């Protein structure tokens, strides 16, 4: 078991390293848009474009050999030195840390809600297969997974913000900063939470239903019934528990990807100054270091998530053989 965990951790490190390397290569082969911009600016202001380029390369260490640049790049990232954000005039990590709370404010409730509600509905559907509720839930789930979340957000803003005026249209950072746990903050976070949860609930529900259905029909559930287990015990011990094994995969893999991607869009739509918004602004302003930093955050969350998922799997499923993978 311990050996297995060590191997998984080592693999996660390899993955992170390979991703860093590939990103470096991409940076190398693509034209640096900042260079063009600098040269253009220099030419406009009567300076020498070549000199501007040299200065820029000097500053960024681009005149060193490829290998040196590569090792420096990797060490920097490993040491937590993620570069300098030109637009925010602060280190990339500081910028990320500063915006992280805003992202957590709405994504943490969304994760909890979508997991609990999604799984709950999914299990209920599976246990009441072929009933009207089941059909209704399945149909609603289709809407949930199909509705484009950024458009859904806009529609909610249009209906509940513009037309009905129930929720504010503009996110006020001051409220989030000073009264994090207030009703006012909840009010401005409500719609983002709804948007983020909708897709995740639907996805969760579909998976939970499919997985639970397999176990509802399983022989060992019949054994449990024959023993005299009923109701909640039946559900929690004999159906839910084995269902957790495959569901853990879903939670980390698909759900995480979904949430990370949606959160960027949600932040842009609702104007929440979180990591997603930071990433978006960095892209628009061509702040390459910040773009890389904000992209690596979800990547590393995903690497760690995959690792945790593999370990959770071995804890949850006694059948797994540690020799595999």
């Amino acid at each position, binding site marked *: 078991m311990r050996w297995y965990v060590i191997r998984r951790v080592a693999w996660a490190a390899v993955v992170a390293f390979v991703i860093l390397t590939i990103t470096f290569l991409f940076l190398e082969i693509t034209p640096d848009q900042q260079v063009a911009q600098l040269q253009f600016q220099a030419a406009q202001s009567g300076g020498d474009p070549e000199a501007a380029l040299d200065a820029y390369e000097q500053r960024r260490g681009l005149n060193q050999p490829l290998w040196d640049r590569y090792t420096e790049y990797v060490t920097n990232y490993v040491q937590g030195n993620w570069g300098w954000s030109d637009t925010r005039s602060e280190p990339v990590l500081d910028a990320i840390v500063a915006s992280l709370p805003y992202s957590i404010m709405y994504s943490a409730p969304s994760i909890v809600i979508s997991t609990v509600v999604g799984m709950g509905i999914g299990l209920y559907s599976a246990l009441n297969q*072929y009933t009207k509720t089941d059909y209704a839930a399945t149909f609603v789930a289709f809407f949930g997974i199909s509705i484009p979340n950024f458009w859904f957000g806009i529609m909610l803003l249009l209906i509940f913000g513009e037309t009905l005026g129930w929720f504010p249209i503009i996110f006020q950072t001051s409220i989030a900063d000073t009264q994090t746990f207030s009703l006012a903050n909840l009010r401005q976070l409500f719609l983002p939470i709804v948007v983020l949860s909708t897709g995740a609930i639907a996805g969760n529900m579909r998976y939970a239903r499919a997985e639970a259905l397999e176990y*509802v*029909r*399983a*022989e*060992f559930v*019949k*054994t*449990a*019934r*024959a*023993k*005299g*287990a*009923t*109701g909640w015990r039946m559900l929690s*011990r*004999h159906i839910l*528990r*084995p269902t957790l*094994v495959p569901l853990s995969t879903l939670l980390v893999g698909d759900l995480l990807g979904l949430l990370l991607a949606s959160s960027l869009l949600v932040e842009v739509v609702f104007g929440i100054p979180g990591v997603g918004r930071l990433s978006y602004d960095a892209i628009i302003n061509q702040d390459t270091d910040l773009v890389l930093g904000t992209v690596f955050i979800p990547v590393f969350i995903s690497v760690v998530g995959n690792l945790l998922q593999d370990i959770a799997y071995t804890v*949850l*499923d*006694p*059948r797994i053989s540690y020799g595999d993978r």
Partner: protein
Amino acid sequence: MSDPLISVKNLHTQFHTDDGTVRAVDGIDVDVSRGETVCIVGESGSGKTVTSESITKILQMPPGDIPIGEVQFRDVESVRELADQFPKRVFDVHEDDAPGTAGTDVPPEEDRPGDEKHFVIVEERSGDRISRGYIDMVRAPDNALRKIRGGDIAHIFQNPQSALNPVYTVGWQIVEAVQLHSDDDDEAARERAIDLLDRVGIPDAAARFDDYPHEFSGGMKQRVIIAMALASNPDVLIADEPTTALDVTIQAQILDLLAEIQEDLGMAILFITHDLGVVAEIADRVVVMYAGKVMESGEVFDLFESPAHPYTRALLECLPGRGGDMVSIGGSLPSVTNPPDGCRFAPRCPHAVDDCFTGDQPPMYSVEGADQEVSCVFYGDGYDESVVQTEFAAAQNRTARTDGGRTTGRRAGTDTDESVRSDGGDR
């Protein structure tokens, strides 16, 4: 004569599917008395597994449904207990209309005592105590059945590989069974579980308590399942093909174990199988099922010695070492969604006459001079039963020859290429 412990009366179990209603069990009667072993024999799809799972209603409902029929469980203690627990759902059979309904004859649906909500049927009281009565399992709600399931009536299943929950240790699963039916604390339950494992022949039981099912072999898993079934000394053990998935030597060991335990605990066994060899070995009484109906039932010796029903004859002739030609019953099981009129076996029966194709399944006629009942028109008035008491294979050949396929050609002759042993999932 004392009442049987379990009486299945006119049981109909159906499944509602996209392709129509599957009448898996279509009106059968089975009795199991204390301490005896009753075997239900039949091909795959004859409804024997569904019958066994209908008794304690462990089959999935929906899509399963029992619209007609009664399953009486006559354990006075359970009746008293449930009568206390569900006082509003007790029905006292009045003396004036009591004797007929409680006896052995089949009450049609409308004659069942009480209405839908009553499931504890009290037939006699001595003073305030209930002295005779039964629980109608078909009407009983889940929270009443949970006491009986595993407590009084235990199950073991065909496939030990999938009957244990893979994410729990075997110890945990047996302890659960113990604690569901007793107030034992964890320590006591654990000890009881180890005793049980020991009892069913798991070597080094205490050490294997914390092992997971995948660490056991198939035969050992089946022993674990038996241990689990024994957790609260049940009165009846329903064993659904418990040896089919195991190899031959292990099969014999498991059968021996069951016989041994039965002797120790005096429990009744309802054994579901398609293997007549096993039946001969363990049964006291046999019920032969075909397409959701009972063809013949009786004491095992009588039935093996002088099988009365053409289908039983055919089955027995299939047994190796029985002399005679190996026979294959032409044709296949009739449609379960839309069963034919008359005798279910008629399309494949070499003796079938016009009466066999009309009306309902023939009633159960008693066989003279034997403890046997049979559903075949030839045992009724105006027929000569000796006609069907010939070798099935010979009869098949004869009809084929003399009729030149005139009548049987339509029924049995054309589709002989399909074997009886059409295997598939049961039900």
